[in-house]
């Protein structure tokens, strides 16, 4: 048999694997380190300070959680563009119930998460039951939800959210970093565990990579895709709770700007730690890499537009990189 050639193919895959794979896996972390060192040298007084890092880690927890919200649908092969709108509606719901209607903060949080659950159910139903492209469905529901937010809030910012929420999100610290950071990490670790160590995570991966394979292997594809949207809705809503806790208020539009950074981080995250897969740990690393770069540039006095350059560029670059990796894998596979 052609065992020799097959071993060659194997050897080819493996010879690349040791050095190059390690580099590929940790390249982003390496670059992140370089970025920190460079800014540290350029701005030792402002950049290399505990308070700066504690701000970076704490304030970006919302973006971390929102990025993680994208991962279940992305892994299942679907896009959820409504995550940022869900975040906004969730934080607005929380503020309105807590401030205007005097609900207890716990009840308001529960209601906010329920909003995410309902949005997830609706998105999933439209996508899997009617078989509409997820990009179109969530583009529509996203705009719809943003409209609902403006409606229920009268386009006003609602402030005065219970101090106890603010305390447990940004005021209280552990090892000098606001608790919000740990919430993000916790969501990431749970998701990592589910993706890596539970059957459902493996099944979800196949649903995204080979839907027909999954279906013919007896996997309940419809249920899993739907479940991914529901998970996405709830996690986005949780990001909304953190957002309300960070600001102490809810405003009807600012949350929407998280959408692109979240996608940028999700795709950039898919090029690291476990290259080729949307993975929670990679996504977290990507968020903090992007934010470190932006913060550093801002400390250098660069204008705020750099943020858009950075996120937009990172999204395209990340997708380009993963495309190249895929092409290379395909070449190896053939």
């Amino acid at each position, binding site marked *: 048999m052609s065992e*020799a050639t097959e071993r060659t193919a194997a050897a080819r895959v493996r010879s690349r694997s040791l050095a190059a794979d390690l580099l590929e896996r940790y390249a982003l972390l390496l670059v992140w380190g370089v970025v920190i060192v460079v800014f540290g040298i350029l701005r030792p007084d402002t950049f290399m300070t505990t308070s700066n890092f504690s701000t970076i880690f704490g304030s970006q927890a919302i973006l971390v959680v929102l990025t993680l919200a994208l991962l279940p649908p992305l892994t299942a092969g679907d896009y959820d563009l409504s995550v940022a709108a869900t975040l906004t509606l969730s934080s607005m719901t929380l503020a309105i119930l807590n401030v205007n209607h005097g609900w207890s903060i716990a009840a308001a949080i529960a209601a906010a998460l329920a909003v995410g659950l309902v949005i997830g159910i609706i998105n999933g139903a439209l996508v899997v039951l009617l078989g509409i492209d997820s990009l179109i469905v969530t583009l529509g529901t996203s705009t719809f939800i943003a409209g609902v937010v403006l409606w229920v809030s009268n386009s006003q910012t609602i402030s005065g959210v219970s101090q106890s929420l603010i305390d447990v999100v940004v005021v209280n610290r552990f090892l000098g970093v606001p608790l919000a950071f740990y919430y993000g990490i916790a969501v990431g670790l749970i998701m990592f565990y589910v993706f890596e160590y539970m059957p459902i995570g493996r099944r979800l991966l196949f649903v995204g990579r080979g839907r027909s*394979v*999954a279906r013919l*292997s007896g*996997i309940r594809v419809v249920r899993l895709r739907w479940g991914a949207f529901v998970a996405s809705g709830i996690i986005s809503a949780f990001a909304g709770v953190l957002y309300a806790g960070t600001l102490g208020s809810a405003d009807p539009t600012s949350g929407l700007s998280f959408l692109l950074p979240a996608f940028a981080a999700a795709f950039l995250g898919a090029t690291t730690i476990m290259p080729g897969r949307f993975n929670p740990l990679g996504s977290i690393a990507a968020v903090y890499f992007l934010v470190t770069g932006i913060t550093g540039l801002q400390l250098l006095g660069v204008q705020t537009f750099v943020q858009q350059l950075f996120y937009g560029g990172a999204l395209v670059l990340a997708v380009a990189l993963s495309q190249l990796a895929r092409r290379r894998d395909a070449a190896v596979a053939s």
Partner: protein
Amino acid sequence: MEEVATPRLELRNLSKSFGGTQALRGVGLSLLPGEVHGLLGENGSGKSTLIKVLAGFHDPDEGELLIDGEPVRLPLAPGQFRELGLSFVHQDLGLIESLSVLENLRVAELASSRSRFGISWRRERKRARETFERYGLRIDPTAIVAELKPVERALLAIVRSIEEIRGVGVRQGVLVLDEPTVFLPREGIEVLFSLVRDAAAAGASILFVSHDLDEVREITNRVTVLRDGAFVGTVSTHETSETTFVEMIIGRQLAKLADVEHADKTERRVGVSVEGLRGSTVDGVSFEMHEGEIVGLTGLIGSGFEEVPYLLYGARSARAGRLVLRGEETDLTRLTPTAATRKAIALIPADRKTDGSVGSLPVVENLALAVLDRYFNGVSLELRRMRRETQALMQEFDVRPNDPSLPYGALSGGNQQKALLAKWFQTEPRLLLLDEPTQGVDVGARQQIFGLIRAAVEERGMHVLCASSDYEQLSLLCDRVIVFGRGRVWRELVGEDVTKERIIEQSYAAMAAEVAGVVA
């Protein structure tokens, strides 16, 4: 005569290595004008590397290319093969499914710099109709390619290629057909072959790449055989026996395949029965399967046999029908693949790439997918045990190389199929449904696969149903073959009647009856 002619295309001493291993070792090939030249070899023998050098995709380490005796510098630039009068039809055909036949036919022309504004689609349609007529084909130029039958797609791709080399003058042309028949039923292959013969008669050289020995023997004048990247020899087809070819391909003698016992097992206890199955093109089919029996389903494409495995698995919805598996009844109209797996039914689909596996994911993940719950201890997946047991399973099914972390797509066709058998055998199915189980699989692996299936039937009491239009495969594997015609059972062949010849005869008889039925 042939010896004096200058070869249209000649490759000398071609070598190519990937990361230290030789994919090609000093291979030579010469194509004479008007010749159909076969390129034979198992998967991984270097056939595709050679083709890719000609297409300008690989840069060879060494070697010369001569076109009409004139040296051409290697590597070829991308697209340069067109100027040299080469045209390729790859296994995937390279058609754009969402576009019309006409657009596909003219795609090269439309894409070329010569194309101007203002294409007259009416004139193009007329031209396309004339083109098809010239080849004796009836294909509607306005049809969308996705709606064509597989045969029509293959013919379209080949007509397009022949037209392409006609563009440069057919006497200059070299047509490379890379496994074009894999997805075709027999009658499609006939039409295809007549196109190929016509092109050769007009002076074109044709390189026919295949691992189907029968087809190569039927259509080619000469054959070059490769094995493990090395040149084994070029021989004249009609002077070479089948056994010689097989020995050249695999380098050792195979146990003779044809001596298969076909015991009549219809007196045994019935284990599976299908009653009143309707759905897609299947129109009222009932049959039984006995203990220890491998049942084949066949017919011409479109006769409905190819739908049966999917209907019995719930992968396509049935309008009516009942399945009784060891006394347990299932309503087929409500069956889903998930429910089917619960009932210990397994399906191995024909299309490994889109339905059977995810090539970019590791073998271990592809194989463990069917039994994930087994590795879940309530808290977490035991990844180490999963890897270890998958490796043992690969060993048992002789999947090479025995490395569970390799991407599935890096395995050769035969090993991919063995791995798929392993994936489903570990679920211990009671009913195994196969659709073209050895498509794109080399001779050696094919025999192993037959052996594995037979052992499962005898040792584990598995019931096996195999849908295939590969009549030889059916005759080698099955105890009984059910021939379909017009969505119904036409004939059953049992025992000594299970021969390639009888199956072919009955498949065509079913079609003849179908035609007669339509006329009457």
